[in-house]
Each structure stands twice: as structure tokens, then as C-alpha cells.
């Protein structure tokens, strides 16, 4: 029960994240979301009695909850962009839409076959898919480059959650490699965001349309 609660609340965090245009709040919501995922991993490790998941949880906590969130917060401060005005969908509507997506994710995950290890895990599929969909929605509805990174990270969280609950986690070295890649990706995009700010004096990616046919 607690497991379902943890998992779903991470998805809810993501939904809430969509609701605000404040970049700082977004990052904080993301941070909470990863924290919940780290906790889920711990619980999962306890239930499954697999020690490698403890390590994973630790890494998630250090890398994502602390590292990436702090990095992004620092980045926001440096760049000085506080609000994301959004693209075609107002933030509240986007949030409502992501709630709908959550329901949709529930429907989808019911269609998929389940490993019948733990009843609670079925919520993992829902939350995972919901996170992925919300991440994509976030990327599609936000203007700022930094929000796109956040959306991507949310999506990645969803994938991790899905992997954890539906396939009882990938081999450790694969997970580690994935973390490394994601970490590097965020770092590189961070640097790029700096350059974008420096060259264009904004980080609004909807205005980056000079390359087209």
C-alpha cells in the first residue's frame, strides 16, 4: 500500500510540476519527484531483497535529487529567468490534461501484461507511463530550454520507474551507464543553455527557428 502511495505521489508531483510556470517551483517539484522515486527504489530493494537497488536509490538521491536539481537551480539563478510563459496551453489546463494522462496511463498499463510478483507493482506501470507522458507534455508546452531539460528528466524518471517495477530493474551496470549518460546530457544541455543565453540573450526555444527549409 505504501508502495503504491509512493509511486503514485511521484507521478502526482510531476502533475503538479506542470501546473506552475515558476521555474524554481518546477525544479523543486522535480526534486521531490526523484526523492520519491529513490524511496520507492529503497522499498523495492527491501521487498525484493536485492542489494543493488539500495545502491541505485543512493545514486538517484545523490545524482538526481541533489545534484541535478541544485545544478538546475543554480543555472536558473545565473540566467535569471524565473517564469516560463508556456506555449499553446495555459499551465492550469496543461495540469488538467496531465491528470487525464494519468488516467490514460492507468488504462494503458492495464493493457500490458504484468509480472505477478507484487500486486502493488501494477501502480508502477501507471506511474511510469504517466511520468513519461507528463514529461513529453511538459516539453511540448514549455518555452524555456531549461523546462525542456526538466521535461526530459521527468520522462527519464518515468522510464526508470517503469523498468524498476515492470522488469524488476535492469542490470546494475546498465542502470549506472544510463545515469551517467543522463547526467552528462543534462550537464551538456546546461552548458548549452548558458551559450544560448549568451548568444541570443534569452533561452526561449520557440524563437530558435532560423534553421528551416
Amino acid at each position, binding site marked *: 500500500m505504501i508502495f503504491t502511495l509512493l509511486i503514485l505521489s511521484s507521478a502526482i508531483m510531476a502533475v503538479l510540476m506542470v501546473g506552475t510556470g515558476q521555474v524554481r517551483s518546477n525544479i523543486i517539484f522535480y526534486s521531490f519527484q526523484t526523492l520519491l522515486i529513490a524511496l520507492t527504489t529503497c522499498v523495492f530493494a527491501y521487498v525484493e531483497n536485492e542489494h543493488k537497488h539500495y545502491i541505485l536509490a543512493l545514486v538517484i538521491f545523490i545524482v538526481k535529487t541533489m545534484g541535478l536539481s541544485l545544478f538546475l537551480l543554480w543555472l536558473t539563478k545565473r540566467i535569471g529567468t524565473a517564469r516560463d510563459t508556456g506555449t499553446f496551453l495555459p499551465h492550469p489546463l496543461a495540469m488538467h490534461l496531465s491528470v487525464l494522462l494519468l488516467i490514460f496511463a492507468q488504462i494503458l498499463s492495464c493493457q500490458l501484461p504484468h*509480472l505477478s510478483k507484487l500486486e502493488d507493482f501494477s501502480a508502477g506501470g501507471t506511474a511510469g507511463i504517466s511520468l513519461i507522458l507528463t514529461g513529453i507534455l511538459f516539453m511540448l508546452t514549455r518555452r524555456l530550454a531549461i523546462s525542456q531539460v526538466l521535461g*526530459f528528466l521527468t520522462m527519464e524518471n518515468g522510464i526508470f520507474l517503469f523498468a524498476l517495477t515492470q522488469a524488476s530493474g535492469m542490470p546494475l551496470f546498465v542502470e549506472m551507464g*544510463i545515469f551517467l549518460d543522463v547526467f552528462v*546530457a543534462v550537464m551538456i544541455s546546461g552548458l548549452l543553455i548558458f551559450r544560448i543565453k549568451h548568444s541570443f540573450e534569452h533561452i526561449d526555444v520557440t524563437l530558435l527557428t532560423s*534553421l528551416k527549409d
Partner: protein
Amino acid sequence: MSLETIFWSAFLLPLLGALCAGLFSRSSLSGICAIVSSWMSLILLTYVLLPFLQSDKTVLFFSSLIVCSKLSAAFLLLTVLVVATALTQSYLFFQNEFKDGKLHQQKHICWFYSFSLLFLLAMMSVFVSENLGTLWISVEATSLLSAGLVYFSRTNHAIEATWKYLIICSVGIAFALLGTIFIFASSQYGAVEGGSLSFAILEAKSALLQPLLLKLGFIFCLVGYGTKSGVFPLHSWLPDAHSEAPAPASAMLSASLLNCALFAIFKVLKITNLSSCGISCDRACLWAGVITVLAASFFLIKQHGLKRLWAYSSIENVGLMMVAIGLGSAPIFFLQALNHSIVKVSLFCTAGNIIQICGTKELSHISGLLKISPLNAALLLLGGLAVTGTPPFGTFISEWMLLSLSVERHFAVVAVIILVSLTIAFIAIIYHIGRMLIGNVRIEKTNITSIKYSAIPLLLIIVSVALCFVIRPELLGEIK
């Protein structure tokens, strides 16, 4: 030294080279370092892999994660060759850029070499990884490292292109990760206790995998790696990145990176081979390829950038390779990749020279090339012919084999569409090239004489012609 040691050192060399190149502060030194390490790596790999390619063995086993099949061996050699030639070309390219005053900091060039070698390493690991997970990690690593190459010139356009490249590919690759997880999950339903990501196991147990999950996994992998390889309509990053990267980097992206992504698709497709959804997955690949070929040829009609032109022609060739993959023919896939890569490197190198001469990459601003630089004009023309599968270039043979295979497998429609699109592409490319070659000379600057040319584009064109006359089924029959 055992073969294994040599093999490992071939992998170690780019890493070492990258470190050295990054540490040097003079571009010429780090350039030499990069060139030497890449060619050395090629030599070592050839020493290890050539006997293997000729032998009866099907795989070369190095560790549980590093296994080299014949196809991957061939691709490995091709990739290292492409990177080595591109790096060699880039040495002169950057010298010319320097003279032109476009470049200010040598350190950037050092970083370029360093990133290229790391990129090479990532690509090499794509081909030898025996595991869906490591495959994914390597592919993601290639896009992260090549982002540095695209970013190289630090102009607004380059930054925009890099951002699009990074985000779109990352999202795409994230889908591929999800697909990987689906496949991993599918293996846990009775096929393998606790699941497995190993290709060998998955291929062997293909029939036992959970079909729905496998199918979903394949679709996600197709979309994910398809984004990386530029399948229509997921190609959106590709023309931007290719046109904004410096010419040698574009050559590397087009001639090796796309092969990596396609190789990943090929590997995933092989897992589905024996399962109940194998045929529909084959079809999906096939038609994705056909649509890509058709769309790319239409994209070519109205183009404004020289390198964008070649980018779209890469997309077209990716489509052809997808068709080969969809038809399940590894030799033709490799052959097409080989021919395309060789010609594309030559074309991008020539394009780099031309852009340096004319100072622009807009097609409408380039004219009178025949008068300015007949050599580059001729290379451009020959390359343009080669890339559309015109005899007597190697691409013709591979495309012809592809066509005949599709006819043999009763996909006459595919053959027809490919023929039509190749015709359109040919006409479009020749049209653009023709407009560049003739006309009035519009350049005021007298920087034409100071530019140094290398023989690499010419050599590659000659190799392409030679390939037309040496390809034989026996040479390719073994590649699987």
C-alpha cells in the same frame, strides 16, 4: 601479443589520443595525435578483424559484453576508416579556416579532435556491445559526444542546431530505452529467469518472448534509434546538425553515426526475427525505409544549403539501408552503408572546400565553380552522381542488389518506389549541382589560391568506382 590485447589496444588508442589531443594546446600537435591514433587503431583493427572476416568463424568473443560478429567487424573497420579520413581531412580544413580568419582559438580545435576520438570510441562500442543496455548507452554516448562536434563553430546557428540535436535525439533515445525495457520485460515471461539483455540469448529464445511487450519494445526501439538515424519524419535534427557542423564533423556524422543507429535497429530487429511478430516488424522497417527514401527525394527538390542537400541525401540512403534491414539482408545493409559512407565523406570534404572558397553554404550564392575551382567542381559532380546510385560507382551495385532482392522477395512496389525516388533525387541533385557549377563568379575575395586541398575526396571517389567492380557475393555472403 594476443589478438585480444591488440583488439583492446585498438579501443584504447582513441581514448589515449583523445586525452592527448585535449591536453595539447596547439591544434597541429593535437591534430597529428588524433590522426595517428585513429589510423593506428584502424591498422590494429584490420590486423585483428581481417583474418576473422575471411575465416569460417561467425563471432569473435572477447568478453560477455564485447562480442564481434562479422557484420560488426565490417562496420567497425568502416567506422574507423571514416573517422580517420575525416580527421585527416580536418587537419587541412582547420588550417584553411585559420587562414581565413574564421577561427580564433586553437583550443577549440584541440577539443574538436578530442571529442571526435571519444565519439569514435563510442561508435566502436556500439558495434561490439553484446547487450541491449550497453548498446543503448553507447548510442546515447555517441549523440552526446557528437553534440560537441556540432557545437564547434559556436555561432548562433550552430547553437540552435546543437540544441535541437541534443533534445530531439535524447527524447528519441529515451524512447529506445523504454523499448529496451519492454524487450527486457518480455524476456521475463518464461524465456529467461530474471530476464536478459544479451543479444545471443534473446535471439535464441526469440520465440518464447512475450509477444506484445516484444512488439512494443521493437516499436519504441525503432522510433528511438530511428530518430538517431534520421528516418522520416524523425529526421528533423539531421539537416540542421549536418549543415552547421564543420565539414569533417558532418562527414563523420553522416558516414558513421547514422550507421551506428541503423546497426542498433538491425540488432533489435534480429531479436524479433523468430517471434510471432517478426514479420510485421520486418514490414515496419521496410516501409519506414521506403517512406524515408521517397520523402527525402522530395525534400531534395527545394533546398537552399549545400550541406543540407547532402544531409537529405544521407536520409535517403538511410531509407535504403532501412529497406535492406527490413528485407533482412545484412550484406546489402553493409554494402549500402559502405558505399554511402565512402561517397559521403568525399562529398562533405568537397563541400567543406567549396564553402571555404565561396564563403557561403547557401546554394543560391554559389556559382561559377567550374571557373573558380575545376577540381572541386568535378569532385562535387562525381560525388553527386555517386550518391544517387549512378553507375559506375559502388552505390549502383549496392542499390541494384537491394532492388533485385526486393523483387525477389515479391516487393515489386518497393522497387518501383525506390526507383522513382532515386530518379527524383538524381534530377534534384544534378539540378542543384548544375546551378553551382556554371554561372558568373561572384567571389571578391582572393582566398582561392591559399586554400590547400587534400587528395582524400578524390581518392574516395576512386575507391567508390573501384568498389563497383570488385564487389562479389562471396565477399559478402559471410557477413551476418
